[in-house]
């Protein structure tokens, strides 16, 4: 018998009698832009509202003029990134500007599907991260977020604020391995 067969047989023999799956009721909550912004600020990110998506370039020019290597499909890019870009090039990215799909007001998270990442490593290896989000796509909580996603796709992530750690004496340090800062542009 293979381990697979052994394990499955043993589970079958040892599992308790069948218990029903509960129904998850519809949990509602505050899905406002204000709540999203407050929660995001609490986890080290910050949000800026603009009138139209075309104003993104202006925001980037104002806030990140000192950053050299910019990767993006939304604003002017200075490094070309695709799925085959080498690690050595990815490592040099200072700023990535990426489209988010859904924002979650209760925790400040934004869903990024693989296709928006340009390269799977980009949102994580970039020194600074900007996510651009249609503010009508902010929902109250995780239940609504998963409902709104048609599919979780091949790969995707909720990203909530910049990378952080508190592994040394519980002192919060922003910028562990991933982005050192994270801004959300709401349009």
């Amino acid at each position, binding site marked *: 018998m293979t381990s697979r067969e052994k394990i499955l047989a*043993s589970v079958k023999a040892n599992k308790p009698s069948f218990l029903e*799956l509960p129904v998850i009721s519809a949990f509602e909550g505050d899905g406002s832009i204000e709540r999203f912004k407050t929660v995001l600020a609490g986890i080290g990110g910050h949000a800026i509202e603009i009138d139209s998506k075309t104003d993104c370039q202006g925001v980037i020019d104002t806030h990140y003029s000192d950053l050299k290597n910019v990767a993006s499909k939304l604003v002017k890019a200075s490094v070309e990134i695709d799925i085959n870009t080498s690690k050595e090039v990815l490592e040099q990215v200072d700023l990535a500007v990426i489209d988010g799909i859904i924002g979650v007001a209760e*925790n400040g998270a934004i869903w990024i599907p693989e296709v928006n990442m340009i390269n799977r490593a980009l949102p994580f290896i970039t020194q600074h991260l900007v996510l651009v989000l249609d503010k009508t796509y902010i929902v109250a909580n995780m239940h609504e977020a998963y409902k709104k996603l048609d599919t979780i796709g091949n790969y995707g992530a909720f*990203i909530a*604020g*910049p990378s952080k750690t*508190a*592994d*040394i*004496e519980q002192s919060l340090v922003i910028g562990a391995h991933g982005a050192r800062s994270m801004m959300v542009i709401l349009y």
Partner: protein
Amino acid sequence: MNHPALAEKFAKDFNRTTWHDETLWFVRQKRDRAIYPIPEFQELRLLASQIKDHTLSNLDNYLLQFEENAIKNGVKVHWAADGEEHNRIVLDIIRNASSIKGKTGPIKMVKSKSMLTEECHLNPFLQKNGVEVVDTDLGERIVQFRNEPPSHIVMPAIHLKKEDVGETFHEHLGTPKGEKDPQALTEAARQHLRQKFVEADVALTGVNFAVAETGSFVVCTNEGNADLGVNLANVHIACMGMEKLIPKVEHLSVFIRLLARSATGQPVTTYTSHFTKPADGKEMHIVIVDNGRTQQLGRSDFRNSLKCIRCGACMNTCPVYRRSGGHSYDFTVPGPIGAILSPNIDLHKYSSLPFASTLCGSCSDVCPVKIDIHVQLYKWRQVVSKENELPAAKKWGMKGLAKMLAMPKVYDLGGKVARSALRILPHGMTHAQSMNPWAKARELPDAPKQSFKEWYSKNKKS
């Protein structure tokens, strides 16, 4: 060494013990602040518990469904009955990977947090076989440098002060002597580990949740180390205990809302990553591990422990864990949950752990999946006693006491003798630690002149 002996060692440094206690309690308070604004939090705990109950009651079918969907996604699925087989599978995957085969020089692996691989002792095994293993979670990297096991499942280096970390980094990363600023130390680790991420041939991650209906799995981190490792390396190996399964994507919402709030008091971890298919040209493997879990599933009193989502809330709240430190448990998962998981693995070795509790029940109160931890601790004590694993003093003490309590006359006499003895004998003798371990940090009360029984018979209305 058993828990009391190891705890005594930890508690010798009074200031450090107090600091440890307060630090963990601070995390517990953060947890409270994170859950109070969620009016449905208790309902979510109940749902999470019921979803896990259901999943365990149908686990074989969900495992099959998960496997079938993962294979459809182009993921290779492996099954390991125990830790040894798990380690062998991981090594085989590495050696047979097309991107690694024929590589000259050492094979390099980056690992994000996985308590399962700690449980299986994967690191020493791989290192013995020529694989360079780098733990990339900051806390895990710190304890890896120091050649120590993690002392907490979410905060692996919580037993260390920043001065300790500064020393370690000075030795291994060349930071200036005396540097203890967490910001500077984290930056040094960032630079050091970025290089490791870029060089890695293979990335290994744990699994927080595995979804049967899609064959996907979810990994939660704050640092971003799991995604960085996986997306830069050509091979991704995800190792999961079989109890990580949940039926559907919609169930993730319940668990994601509970996990970080319970663990660190955050509304959510920074990264909640959903892996379904490997990137083009890359390999993704899942290793499903039993290692005692099916046995625990068969123990009706204890199978509830398999619902654990490894948030660590029971540790942060436990008065014994906070004052004895994670290493005093000498088991991969310390704290109250470790004390009910470990006897299943080795009752003899871990027989003292179910007693590392005041049975106050705080662990059960904070558990996001409503495991009756303190009840199971109590039940394991019965098993330990039945299997003759109690220390001699406790065993014969209990036996003697049981005899005495069954004989009222002897009991009355014993009480009388004890009351006079307490009054007459010097403090040094009644509180001698070798004879009365109870009095180690406690004072006995003044002995009353009479027992309640004597008082009652004198005062009752005839």
